[in-house]
């Protein structure tokens, strides 16, 4: 029942809203994985990023897509928490428990083991709408290490921070470019993997149309 509800929500509600707000101008669609385990690594400026990531996959893959989201933000409120878990299908990441030594990536690993497509935002939090990419956190490398068979697809989302910047409530329709790059593979070295991911994201960013936003 909830599965059916999630499918209807993603395809009949989230997708038209994403199209309306962003135009969802995707290039490199052929690079998107259609089955798991697979990892998507995207930059993060807005909640619209999650909406877009749930909207650009073909219908047959969309139920597999699981966006990673901070449990300290999304699971605080019981209603939003239920919605995030069951309908958005988030994979919770307990950012606030990193220091305690708890395995905060366990839910993401479970999802990958179940054959899902996990979307991670390695910047860790939403940046401002300007083009800058924050330092990438290495959780994505640890996931890739645990699932070396999973492709890691870099995605640059441009302009989502204009549709709904951090701290704003009313979304304003503006075109977003979504650039999907060729997938990376785990090759054994964490630092080099992260450098490769950073380069891939910056290369995609260079191909995006200029962002005149200040």
């Amino acid at each position, binding site marked *: 029942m909830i599965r059916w509800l999630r499918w209807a929500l993603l395809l009949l509600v989230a997708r038209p809203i994403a199209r309306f707000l962003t*135009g969802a*101008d*995707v*290039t490199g669609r052929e690079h998107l994985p259609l089955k798991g385990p697979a990892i998507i690594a995207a930059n993060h400026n807005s909640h619209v990023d999650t909406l877009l990531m749930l909207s650009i996959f073909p219908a047959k893959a969309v139920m597999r897509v699981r966006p990673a989201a901070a449990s300290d933000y999304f699971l605080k409120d019981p209603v939003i928490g239920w919605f995030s878990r069951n309908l958005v299908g988030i994979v919770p990441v307990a950012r606030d428990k990193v220091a305690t030594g708890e395995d905060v990536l366990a839910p993401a690993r479970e999802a990958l083991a179940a054959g899902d497509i996990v979307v991670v935002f390695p910047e860790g939090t939403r940046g401002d*709408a300007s083009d800058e990419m924050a330092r990438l956190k290495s959780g994505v490398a640890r996931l890739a290490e645990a699932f070396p068979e999973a492709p890691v697809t870099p995605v640059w989302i441009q*302009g989502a921070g*204009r549709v709904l*910047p951090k701290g*704003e409530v*009313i979304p*304003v*329709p*503006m*075109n977003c470019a979504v650039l999907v790059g060729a997938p990376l593979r785990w090759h054994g070295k964490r630092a080099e993997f992260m450098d490769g991911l950073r380069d891939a994201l910056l290369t995609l960013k260079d191909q995006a*149309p*200029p962002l*005149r*936003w*200040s």
Partner: protein
Amino acid sequence: MDDARFKDSLHAESLDRNARLGNLRRAAASRGGNESLDQITRFLDLQHPHLLWGLGGVFGLVVLGAVVAGVLTVVNPRKDYTELRQRIFSWVIMIALLSAALLLGWQATTALFAVVSFIALREFLSLAPTRREDRLIVLAAYLAIPLNYAFIAADIYGVYLVLIPVYAFLITPWLMAVIGQTRGFLASASMFHWGLMTCIYNIGYVAFLMRTPPYEAPAGGAGLVFFLLVATEFNDVAQYVWGKLLGRHKIIPRVSPNKTWEGFIGGWITTAALIWFAGPLFTPLEGLGLAVVAVVLPAAGFAGDVTMSAIKRDIGVKDTSHLIPGHGGILDRIDSLTFTAPIYFHLLAFFALEKF
């Protein structure tokens, strides 16, 4: 033929169509046969034959294009014709959407062009420089779309004429002042003005043409819109083809390096001939009025194309988005139309239409 007799003959023709419709309905009732086929026959019988022949002709041209692309792919397997194929496929979709809207009437056409305005404005505002504090103005600019098209739907021409050129023109900078945003004030205000005028107001004229009374045009309002769209797109294609065939001398290298004098003049003459010979089938224009439209419309199309190119060059993009495979964004497709639509409308109003 003088004006009154012309109108009488058109009126008689529409009466005749109604009579045929009645006959069809009776025939269907007595047969009790295939209901949906009868409905389609009835629907098409209501349409003006010129419009149906015109739409059929355009579809024929696209099918011909598809066949040529297919033959090229087979004959020349080493070359990649993906973009040509995408381009033609996108034409099929666009023509199908427009044909459906034109056949369904002014309501569908108004709705379709409201959507076109929205996507075009979103493309424009996304490429133009905007600031976080402008978000409210961006939202207000979108609100001008339902307002503008509401006056088209309500057939209130006088208000439509001034709503955006005067009132949106004043309200936009006033809103900016209220927000307290004075940095780059004039540049920012004129950016919004440009978007509102081209994407909403000028495109709105296409929808407003549909409100022409049936007796004022030989193929109704839909025929007027059909002919505007055909002449505008034909001009784009003709300029491109002549440029490819004969192009030597660049016409405006700092804006559009691929445009040539040969393409511009060749397209101009070909389109003017098309308007001169086919115009009387779809528009009430004749004599001087027809000649003026034939001369002005191709030049206006070129002007629209070049002006939008200058904006894209300033922003640093080739296409305004990837919405239409093989074509680019919707603004890339309607750039000429933002100039031809108002001019065509005004020339029709001046020379022929009594309503406007």
